[in-house]
């Protein structure tokens, strides 16, 4: 009996050893949410009759600095102090030598906006500076017809070298060129791909920029006559908002697909008649583009909400006979916007366009700061409509836009025969 009892007891112990609920393995802590550093990477050109200023606007006071980088190192650095809802304008010539460079602007808080404003004798170009690098960008709307020069400027302010692959698509299809296969953007340097030289005579060009190593920020520069346009490459997404100025000048929306297959798109329009659903739709083939000509839509400012069945990126091309301006769309409506560089050129007319995609009437406060002028106005935008605020004379470094409802904001500037368009920088709600 004792033996059998021993066997039973040992069996019980063995069973426990086999089937004892295993202790949870030690695990690492939770991955924290991302909280990107408050920085912006700005393209800059000094020389060739052009000059760049970097406008920095911030809701939060604190120190900041702008570091120009080129050829693997810092070419200069300038520190500045921002007040609450204050602004700073930094001429790049104060920081860097002549050339095409990148500027890394460090600001005290994410509630800030930074923009590049490039001006020449007969040209003006502006764009908000992107902050977070992405693995994949799309930039479209450019062309290389006679008299046009198109460059893709890729900036790498980071410690590690980057390598990117460009997929360039034109009306001829995907363009083959070894140059596009592996473009190295060294650490703290810029690389410029001149599509005007490599692919002359293209009417519509879209470029997919894929980083295979490191991180880059890409912008496009299109020279047309004496004017030029500057616009950001954007990370493709399925929903976009684009605001277009009114008037009779030629303008169009170029929608580029980042997908190798077909992508369906659908466009709703906001304008004087409120929301017009299903204004347009179509199919974009293999990384191609679709163009929506806005010339005959309305002489009033309008806005569009664009949906794609896959990732897409829309761009507004403002193409009057005497100048050129480009900008990308906005991903989301927001209650707070910063429009760096708006009304930043003396003797230039600036209008702020506010689209209200919501169902209620939006009351929008517009404040300008810095420089020699001051802006303090208000605009009421009906639901589904687009409001225009014409800025008074004076030079500021940019505008703060605050609304009681989410809106989409951009600004448009005309200086003689030169034009600039820039979508604002949306801020997270407080």
């Amino acid at each position: 009996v004792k033996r059998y009892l021993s066997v039973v007891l040992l069996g019980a112990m063995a069973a426990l050893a086999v089937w004892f609920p295993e202790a949870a393995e030690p695990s690492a802590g939770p991955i924290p949410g991302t909280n990107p550093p408050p920085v912006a990477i700005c393209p800059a050109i000094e020389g060739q009759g052009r000059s760049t200023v970097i406008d920095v606007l911030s809701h939060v006071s604190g120190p900041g600095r702008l570091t120009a980088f080129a050829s693997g190192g810092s070419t200069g650095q300038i520190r500045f102090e921002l007040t609450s809802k204050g602004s700073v304008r930094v001429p790049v010539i104060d920081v860097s030598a002549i050339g095409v460079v990148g500027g890394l602007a460090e600001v005290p808080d994410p509630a800030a906006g930074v923009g590049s404003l490039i001006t020449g004798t007969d040209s003006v170009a502006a764009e908000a500076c992107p902050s977070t690098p992405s693995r994949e960008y799309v930039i479209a709307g450019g062309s290389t017809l006679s008299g046009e020069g198109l460059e893709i400027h890729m900036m790498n302010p980071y410690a590690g070298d980057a390598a990117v692959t460009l997929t360039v698509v034109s009306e001829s299809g995907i363009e083959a060129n070894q140059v596009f296969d592996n473009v190295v953007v060294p650490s703290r340097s810029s690389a410029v791909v001149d599509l005007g030289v490599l692919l002359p005579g293209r009417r519509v060009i879209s470029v997919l920029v894929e980083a295979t190593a490191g991180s880059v920020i890409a912008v496009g520069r299109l020279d047309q006559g004496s004017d030029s346009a500057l616009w950001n490459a954007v990370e493709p997404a399925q929903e976009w908002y684009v605001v277009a100025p009114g008037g009779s000048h030629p303008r169009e929306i170029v929608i580029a697909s980042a997908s190798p297959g077909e992508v369906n798109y659908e466009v709703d329009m906001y304008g004087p008649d409120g929301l017009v659903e299903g204004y347009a739709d179509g199919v974009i083939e293999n990384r191609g583009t679709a163009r929506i000509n806005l010339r005959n839509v309305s002489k009033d400012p309008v806005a569009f909400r664009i949906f794609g069945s896959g990732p897409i990126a829309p761009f507004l091309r403002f193409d009057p006979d005497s100048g050129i301006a480009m900008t990308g769309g906005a991903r989301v409506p927001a209650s707070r916007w910063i429009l760096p560089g708006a009304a930043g050129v003396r003797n230039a007319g600036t209008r702020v366009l506010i689209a209200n995609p919501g169902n209620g009437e939006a009351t929008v406060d517009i404040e300008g700061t810095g420089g020699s002028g001051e802006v303090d106005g208000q605009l009421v935008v009906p639901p589904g409509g687009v409001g225009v605020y014409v800025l008074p004379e004076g030079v500021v470094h940019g505008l703060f836009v605050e609304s009681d409802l989410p809106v989409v904001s951009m600004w448009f500037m005309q200086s003689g025969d030169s034009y600039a368009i820039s979508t604002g920088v949306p801020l997270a709600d407080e």
Partner: protein
Amino acid sequence: MSSRMTDVATPQLAEEPTVEAGAPLPRVKVIVTHIPGSDLDAALATIERQVYGAVTSVEVVSVEPVSVKAPVLLRESLDDSIVATAHEVDYLWLVHSDARPRPDALNALVAEVERNDAALGGSKVLVAGSKDELESIGSATDVFGEPYSGLDEGEIDLQQYDVVREVAFVSSVSMLVRRDLAQGLGGLDTVLEPGAAGLDFSQRVRLTGGRVIIVPSSEVYHQGRCSEPEGWRELAGRYRAMLKAYRLVTLVWVVPFGLLLAVIDSLANLLFLRWRPAGRYLLAILWNLGKLPSTIGARRRFRRVRSVGDEELFRFQARGSIRMREVGTDISDTLLFMFDEDHALVRGTQRVWASPGIWGAILAAVIALFSARAFFFGGVPNAGYSFPFEEASTSLARFLGGWNEAGLGTATPVHPSSGLTGLASTLTFGHPGAARTLLTLAFSVLAITGMGRLMGRLGFRGPGRYMSGLILLSGPGTTLLTGRGSWLGLGAAAFLPWAVRAVFVHISKTDTSPWSLGGWTLLWCLPLAALSPLAALVPAVAVLLWWSVGGSRGRFWLAGLSLLGLLAALPFLIGDPGWVTDGTRRLGLSVPGYWPLVALAAVAALMFVEGRLRRLATAGAVLAFGAMILVNSGIGGPGVEELGLIVASFGTAIVVSAALDMFSRTPMRVIAAVSAAAMLVLSIGALADGRLGLPSGDENARYAFASTLAGEDGPGRLLLVSDTRQAIPGEVRAGPGLWYRVVDGAGMTSDEVWLGPPAAGDEALGAALERIATGAELRPGELLAGFSIDWVVVIDGPEYLNAILQSQLDLLPTPLDPTSSVYDNPMSVPLAAGETAVWDRAGTGFAGPASAERVRISMNGATGWSPAPEADDWAFTVSAEAGEATFRWTGINRILPLAAAVTFIAALIAIVVGRVRP
């Protein structure tokens, strides 16, 4: 005395002396050397019974007053007796008074000496009172005079050597020498012991051209009262004989070599805890120095009668050194005894296979050596929890209260294994690499022999007791530990059976002194505690468990003494209780379910066989299953986990040993044996890699770029980050979606494996990593610089961190490792530096140029640093005036390691003292 000795009524008649017809027999004078304590009358009576018919006279030489009856004469010295011998006498028979010659002994001597035209003949000497045990049959020597009889210990005379032949020397117990030669040579050297005297006289006879022969038909029983075997006087006498006989040209090389051999022999014997040989050599040398004038005089006198060169002596000498051969034999015997408890190999190869368990031992040893083959060619891998030893002095200093530099440095005493590794490195003359390889190889031998000897002590004799050592090496628990690179776990498993064996001493075993038992217990338990602190509890627990199942061999006082082994580990356990209690620091190992099932099959079958096997198998199974439950339950910290895994293998090994103790065809035995065989197969499979289950690779070589590319500031530290815990060597800390730890850029050493509880610096580093992980930090290098982190290595992942580190400004991606992302941090500050000078490591502290500034040391601050320490955030600064910064524990953390060291030395002394038999 044997029957042959007393059987004088029917003596074997020797051949009559060969003389020409009609010629008288050679006349012989008998000289009896009186040996104190011997029965002189009995000796004279045996002389009187000699059948030889031409004995002219009998004289007794004695320095003590003894009474002899006429016609026997008494002389005070041998010289007197020889000188006074009349010219009519042809031969002198020199015989000891403790010798008992057979009646025909003299007759045989004279006959053979005459027939062989020899100058000196010696008798075959048998041990009196034995069954014809041979003592001397004439000997060869080596060049140093060390006798070599060729006889085995206790060898019986079966007339196997009964051939008259020339020898190097004969025993002085009974020798026949030509009278003229004896008078010419001055007889035996009276200051020499008999053995040495015989050698000396034989050598001198040979150098005068005489032949020295052994006459086996002349048998003499010897009571052995004349000398103490291996006494220093014998050794001294051999030296004197050498100095007297050899020419100067021979002495020039023989003497230095002799001294060198004396040193080697002394050291080798000290390894066996025998100090007497060293004393003997010393006394022999001193005695000869004292006797040097008389030796020189004797040399001069002998030179006049010398007629041949030393070559004549060399002809009868063995090659090499007989003493060194004996040392080699001692070593091999000792090693063999580890496997061959029954001395089967020593007793003779023909009986090897009759020894139970010997083939199991040999098979297990072969498998173990095969399993460790990679160490012979590539050393022990540096991976997981297995890393090189530090320099011996640094390691010992760290154990005895030095700074623990693991991670960012910790105010916790270092893991006690530092003491053991320091000791091992010291014993290998300061070669930590050799010490580590030898120690690892020793682990495999110790595990196998330990299990064999333990189970032998518990009454097992079967082959399974040694084979079960393989289970200990790579059984259910140890294979998991070694798979993670736990070198310490492997070592603890190897020491465990020896420690348990030390406390399992049967009450009937009285031939070992308590000093020795206690000493051995401590000697095994202290290293065991150093390797795996909690494992030092096992011997005591085993005694209790064994007692609870009815066993009686455990000794409670030894079990209590074994707990003193914890002295080595207490500072570490007190300083880092989380090592025992913190479940988040566990390795997260669990024993696969098939192990308890197979073990259960074996032990269940053994329940129905004889009681001895049943009891042991039960105890083993309870240990194994209990340990497995403990491991799988997740209770306790890494120390408990380590203990559980080691004991799981130990218990399973006991079950296997019981199951394979004897083979028979009874169903239960077959089931047990098959189950045990299955467990062995499972274990051997894990050993197939040739590294005893330890992981491959060299993490130090992988990160050697830190040293190679280091500037004047030194290699600093590496921050290793991964989302796979095992990808980082040693203990790791949990971070945001990742594991991490910092390691020394100069290469990780064994003392750095365990990190200790987090201190202020660790908290600060954790917070810095949290910030970097959010992507909010644009300059992570600057953030990590204060920790002296020169390199950040992201191994395998996490991907999100790699993405973040691609968008920062001051950690330079450097393609130094094909499988990891390596980032150089040019912002890093040196480990120890002032404003103008950088300090280097010196022992367990730092040293550099003395100055008036303060030096910041990027280590967690702790009480004990000097001089003039001041907190600097989480780190500290010291005054640079002395040019060095040192750390010393005070209080219990200083006293306990010293106490452990003293206990270790005391254990050695106790063992030595215990070896001295009354």
